[in-house]
């Protein structure tokens, strides 16, 4: 029956077990294993390609061969459940963390998190950005109680490593990658404006501010949390950058 055949195909192209499928299929000439391999190569190779396109910096850091091996193991362990492949790879950073926590590459999972946040931002829903005039129209006493909403395309990634710097020095235009002090906590804000996703390094206070906004905290209390984290936090400058970068939605 068809469901039995389809399970056999699944086991052959993902599990590497040809036995059941070979019993149901035939090649008019040559070896059936070679014909089954065409399908296996397409399924696994195309999905590795999808991950390589979503995680170019991760790939550049570890090299194409290492990345292909890592991605291939992920594909087999966690194949997609929907044909919308722009959503495939959300679990890849956690897989990288699990694989490499003890291999001196602990920062790699956070780099992958930045890249996934970038993919999510790129494909997120459209919405008008908060107009600076709308914010300045609110009288100062009411400002503290104002609740801002993050734009659907805004993401924040906080890391114990210098993920922004690592991302920056591993862009295609940079040929000689300088040494990076990895153990430097950095927070990256990703936002989309004019169809482009921009990455920005946030201060610790600003990251605390955005984290608070994200959980629905009003402007005044969010600013207080930012000052707690970083006494020198400059709310006015921070807000100005967020308004220019379309961090908030209208």
């Amino acid at each position: 029956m068809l469901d039995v055949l389809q399970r056999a195909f699944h086991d052959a192209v993902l599990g590497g077990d040809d036995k059941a499928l070979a019993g149901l299929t035939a090649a008019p000439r040559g070896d059936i294993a070679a014909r089954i391999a065409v399908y296996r190569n397409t399924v696994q190779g195309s999905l590795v390609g999808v991950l390589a396109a979503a995680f170019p910096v991760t790939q550049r850091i570890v090299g194409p061969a290492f990345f292909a091996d890592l991605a291939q193991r992920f594909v087999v362990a966690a194949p997609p459940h929907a044909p919308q492949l722009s959503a495939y790879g959300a679990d890849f950073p956690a897989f990288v963390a699990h694989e490499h926590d003890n291999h001196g590459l602990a920062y790699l999972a956070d780099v992958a998190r930045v890249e996934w946040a970038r993919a999510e931002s790129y494909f997120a829903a459209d919405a008008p950005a908060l107009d600076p005039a709308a914010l300045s129209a609110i009288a100062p006493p009411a400002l503290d109680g104002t609740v801002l909403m993050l734009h659907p395309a805004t993401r924040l990634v906080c890391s114990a490593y210098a993920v922004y710097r690592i991302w920056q020095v591993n862009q295609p235009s940079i040929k000689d990658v300088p040494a990076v002090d990895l153990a430097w906590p950095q927070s990256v804000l990703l936002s989309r404006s004019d169809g482009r996703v921009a990455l920005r390094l946030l201060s610790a206070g600003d990251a605390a501010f955005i984290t608070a906004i994200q959980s629905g905290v009003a402007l005044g209390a969010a600013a207080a949390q930012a000052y707690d984290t970083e006494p020198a936090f400059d709310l006015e400058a921070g807000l100005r950058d967020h308004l220019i970068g379309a961090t908030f939605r209208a």
Partner: protein
Amino acid sequence: MPDAIPVSAGIGLRHPHDQLLLSEPGDAPLRTPWVEVHSENFLCDGGPRLAQLAAIRRRYPVSCHGVGLSLGSAEGLDPEHLKRLRHLFTWVRPGLVSEHLSWSVTQGVYLNDLLPLPYTEDCARVLCRNISHAQDALGRQILVENPSRYLNFTDSPMTEAAFLTLLVQRTGCGLLLDVNNVYVSTVNTGGDAEDFIRSLPADAVGEIHLAGHSVVGEGDDRVLIDTHSTRVCPEVWALYRTAIAHLGPRPTLIEWDSDLPELAVLLDEARTAALVMKDAA
């Protein structure tokens, strides 16, 4: 821009080319009479990819070609996927909607390939149920494309042409004839390509695909792989002439997915297809 796909030769829309197709003033003649997109590339919530498709749609008729519906899945279709497709079609208003005689989903896992089906009565029941489900959910006819195949099944009593004809009769679906797939499949698994084309119900064929393939291995190990990475080969052009003679002119698409050349090469291939149709008229 009207919805209907003209009976002429169009091209598959690929990312590096979309900007070129939009770069001319609005009143300039169209670079291609129509374009086709892969539906699954546009199921995201928003962002520049959808904006670009909307801009293309304002200038060109668009056909939506699916690669992920998995019409041959024994477990049936994914209602969420159908819902997303219906939403996409609401605003794109595609002139044609097509899918494949293949499957990709089993036990909820999406195997990213167009996997082959045996041509049995059991399989025909699954296909007819799924095609009818899709046509009901989308509120329109879909065209079903013959796949490229790399192996045979020990139990597959019907020919592919007979199987497709049966689907047309039972569901009212149309057909998308991929001439390169006919060639690739017959070289890889046996059968007569011209026979296949001549046995198709001509009225049901709403579109034709043309593409290039790669050759790997030698002797008994020689296999043609449907890579969409080269120009259409002479044997496939000859089969296309046979197809046009049998069917009459049909909307014809040049597909190219990897090792993508500049737009001019795709337009040149489309011109060759247009000439074949003109010569046959």
